[in-house]
């Protein structure tokens, strides 16, 4: 008898439970690495928190950088069936998710910052960002700054780019940056270096110092955590930085004004907005699974940050010209090369064309 009662309770609660699930859409964000990078992962987290505010059932899991733990995590989550969407950073976990998605055809996945082969993974939706568009605008800004009479600008028409490691997404940033700079100043030279790490802030500082000493007055580091070292180098030498992935000067606001002031603007990938958009499309049943979408400035998926430091530190005439460059991109007047899916020879040619 006791057993029967227990079973009934269990059955009823399960039934109600599943009804409750069916009502609220749910999603789990799997962070490859850790939150607190002040950049990409944090932006994704803001996105899912936005969905939470819109009534979604949200959970965030941080799984570190140890890739051996990734597959089991995705398997467990898919097996549980608790989540409508499993959201994760595709630039790191795309292979893992593609494998797992084949085994769980019912489970839906959302990958941000990656592209998938169309139709091959019917339960995966991927979002890529036209970081080259944001970088184009940033490149225009950098070229305008280095040719300006701003305090930290020198005579030479040299700007810098620092990547964490060589990676197609990083090259995409670089190519857009170069093309934006060239559009403003055809004579521009761009120094390109790689730190060889996403974590090593000290090495990041070292690399940035080397670039500044070599004549660059504004540097664009696309290097996650290690980029914080570049900010420090700029602060010490009175030079400028273009931040990346999230609005980095606002992150320093109130705690480190000197650092905030060195970051003229940041190239944004609006992961947050893109995830909110994907969530809305999902609830409307319009999310195109099996495909990817590339979001640019026009769709608010990429761009540069306009904040108080930008207004304060960048002269009005430069801001006007930057705005013109942005409008050109939105109107589709400029053809910006994308490094994604482009032959290395093509991107190398662009990089070599501005070598000092």
């Amino acid at each position, binding site marked *: 008898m006791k057993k029967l009662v227990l079973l009934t309770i269990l059955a009823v609660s399960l039934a109600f439970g599943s009804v409750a699930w069916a009502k609220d859409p749910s999603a789990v964000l799997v962070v490859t690495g850790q939150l607190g990078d002040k950049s990409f992962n944090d932006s994704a987290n803001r996105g899912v928190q936005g969905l939470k505010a819109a009534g979604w059932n949200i959970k965030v899991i941080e799984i570190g950088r140890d890739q051996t733990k990734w597959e089991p995590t995705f398997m467990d989550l898919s097996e549980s069936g608790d989540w409508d969407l499993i959201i994760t950073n595709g630039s790191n976990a795309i292979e893992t998710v593609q494998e797992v998605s084949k085994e769980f055809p019912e489970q839906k996945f959302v990958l941000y910052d990656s592209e998938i082969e169309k139709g091959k993974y019917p339960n995966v939706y991927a979002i890529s960002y036209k970081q080259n568009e944001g970088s184009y605008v940033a490149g225009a800004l950098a070229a305008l700054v280095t040719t300006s009479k701003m305090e930290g600008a020198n005579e030479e028409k040299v700007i810098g780019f620092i990547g964490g490691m060589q990676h197609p997404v990083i090259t995409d940033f670089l190519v857009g940056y170069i093309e934006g700079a060239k559009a403003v100043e055809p004579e521009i030279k761009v120094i390109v270096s790689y730190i060889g790490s996403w974590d090593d802030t000290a*090495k990041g500082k070292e690399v940035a110092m080397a670039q500044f000493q070599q004549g660059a007055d504004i540097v664009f580091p696309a290097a996650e*955590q290690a980029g914080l070292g570049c900010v420090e180098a700029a602060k010490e030498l009175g030079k400028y930085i273009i931040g990346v992935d999230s609005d980095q000067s606002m992150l320093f606001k109130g*705690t480190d004004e000197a650092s905030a002031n060195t970051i003229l603007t940041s190239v944004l990938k609006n992961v947050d907005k893109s995830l909110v958009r994907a969530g809305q499309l999902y609830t409307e049943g319009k999310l195109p699974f099996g495909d990817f979408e590339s979001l640019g400035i026009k769709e608010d998926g990429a761009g540069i940050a306009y904040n108080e430091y930008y207004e304060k530190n960048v002269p009005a005439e430069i801001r006007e010209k930057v705005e013109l460059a942005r409008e050109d991109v939105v109107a589709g007047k400029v053809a910006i090369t994308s490094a994604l899916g482009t032959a290395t020879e093509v991107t190398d040619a662009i990089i070599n064309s501005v070598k000092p």
Partner: protein
Amino acid sequence: MDSIGFDLVAFAFSTIRVMTPLLFASMACMIFTKGGIDSIATEGIMLMCALAGAVGAWMFKSAFGGLMFGMCIGVFLSFTFGYVTLTLKANPVLAGIALNILAGGLTIFIIYYLTGEKGSTQSLATPVLPSLDIPVLKDMPTLGRIISGHNVLTYVSLIMVAALHFFLYKTRSGLRMRTVGENPHAAESVGLSVMKYKYLSLFIAGSLAGLGGAFMSLGYVSFFSKNMIAGRGFIGMAAESMGQGVPGGVLLATLLFSVADALSVRLQLMSMPPELMQLLPYLVTIVAIAVYSYHREKKKERRQQTD
């Protein structure tokens, strides 16, 4: 200055800056090894000390306070490692790996607890250790620009090499510590307290790792960020064995690594392919170790022939 020219002064200056944390790491590894203790935990100890340095500086509102706090944590962790491996007889490699992994996670936990962020301690206002201009040297034309103006810990690290040489080879405690490290049974048979000298080496090595870690967050940059040691403890281990465990040799090996590292940064600016340049420090390691083993084997052969 020609924008594509190689700035030798800047390169030399940066080499010395790159060398500082590596030198503390390799000296710590050297003292660990001299005392017969596995040095694999140096990486983790340095990471914890980097955090301790930043947090200490914030708590005591003084960079020196942070430095002291970092050193204390270094000694504490080193003693813990010693207690686990010497007294409780745990496998030192496993214990070392455990400490390194623990440090990676615990540091993130602590900064999250203190700042609400998991990446760095930038929101804590931390004073940093000053740079020193050396009175007479700084006015010398080229040398002054290279040697003067470094962080105070850089000079400490160099003085430390000489001090450790003196300690190891000119003092009674140094001799005894080496004896204990080389052959604990022999040391015991002549009435030396093995544990006492092992803990002495743990104390010195822990402080050195503490200084190296604290330099990262109080000198090199002005904050702690996750994983900021980034393998420097392990490079210290490599430099220790390449330098054959003597202060001068370890200094040279560390210098070699630093030159390669600084060069890899500078050469990228000169249109060298970055893929190759990033390989440089590792290439130098392999070549140096190969040359060293070749010489050692040759020497052995010659000795056998003369026997």
